[in-house]
């Protein structure tokens, strides 16, 4: 193992993992070691999606991932999502649709939906996108406004 590989790119910035214990979860590294508190801890067992981040562009549960398992990867958290045009569009759609109340689940939804749209393209059917957001739980909105945000994105799709 070369020392250079014990690093990630975090929201575009090279970040060393040398100080990260082998037992540490990516969620804890992001929140407590790197100080990015936008990524939320919900259930810590893979059910709620609040901790979703992008690993090489792909949505991932940071609570079920050991940090050293993603060595060499490029990570995007909610703090970096607006650097991506798709992520920016998702944020704007959530804002326009009022797709949040307490906001705790919102970073997970925005990151997960950004990942999905990058995988599927913005013209993907709304029904399928909503189904594929099944791994994100929201306890206040009743999901209607979140579904509206997804519809808005599709209407605007080029």
């Amino acid at each position, binding site marked *: 193992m070369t020392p250079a590989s014990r690093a990630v790119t975090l929201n575009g910035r090279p970040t060393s993992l040398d100080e990260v214990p*082998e037992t540490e979860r990516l969620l804890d590294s992001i929140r407590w070691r790197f100080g990015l508190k936008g990524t939320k801890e919900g259930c810590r*067992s893979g059910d709620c999606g609040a901790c979703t981040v992008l690993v090489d562009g792909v949505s991932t549960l940071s609570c079920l*991932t050991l940090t050293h398992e993603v060595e060499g990867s490029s990570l995007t958290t909610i703090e970096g999502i607006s650097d991506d045009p798709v992520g920016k569009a998702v944020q704007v759609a959530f804002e326009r649709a009022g797709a949040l109340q307490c906001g705790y689940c919102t970073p997970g939804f925005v990151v997960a939906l950004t990942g999905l749209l990058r995988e599927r393209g913005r013209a993907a059917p709304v029904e399928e996108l909503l189904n594929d957001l099944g791994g994100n739980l929201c306890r206040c909105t009743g999901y209607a406004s979140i579904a509206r945000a997804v519809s808005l994105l599709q209407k605007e799709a080029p």
Partner: protein
Amino acid sequence: MPPFTLIAPSSVEAAVAELKVGAPGEVAVLAGGTDLLFDLDGAKSTARRVVSLRRLPWRTADWNGPVLTVGSTLPLRALEKDPEVARCLPGLFQAVRAVGSVQLRHRATLGGNLGRAAPASDLIPVLLTLDAEVDLVGPGGSRSLPVDRFVLGSRTTALTPGELIRSVRFPEARPSSYLWQRVRPANDISQIAVAAAYSPSEATWRLAVGGIPPRALRLPEAEAMLRSSRPSEEEVRRAAEAAPRPLAIASDRRASEEYRRHLVGTLLERAVRAVASLSKEER
């Protein structure tokens, strides 16, 4: 989390060697980690060394004619996105989609699901109906086992110390279906799940049920009642009625025994009809 050492060998030989170090209960194999991390965090884990498979060249899916070989560390999401999987092995596609969420399937693997052998596995019932073969590599070389001889019980497999799952092979394309019932569809394990498949080469059915501990089971008596790729209404009904009879089913907080027995029959009837209609389309 209790302390452990994380090791990520870059060759199969090195990985096998790492598994042989120390007592068998002190080493855990890490593929996607979506199931293992629960254990590592809890008191029940005795693992002190975790061997990660992330550097092994097993993130593959290869079609050789009708035979699909899936590398054990390929994320499940890749199977779901392969249109040939949905077309040739629709039951496998449906079962993969039933595992967790998109985020979880970006890391969870077929090898991990088999190796962890959870009683609620969504994949094992379908693997039984597709006659999947599990390819193993270990200190004594390579061997293969049919999945029903690999999964032995709840969290129990035929893996010997030092052995790893290298790949899973699906011998032929089969019309197939996987159906489940859950309290919450998006994020729970199934109260009952059923898998059905028709083998064109053998002209026989495979039926299996999951969600009943300790492990998923084939249903040979019900299978024998289905006599063609398009069984009669009467045959389907009789097979569905017979299916739950030999099963030892318990009640728990997710469902009563009575409801589970009802689900086995109802879901099997639907699954068999779905498979029969696929067979019809192929004519």
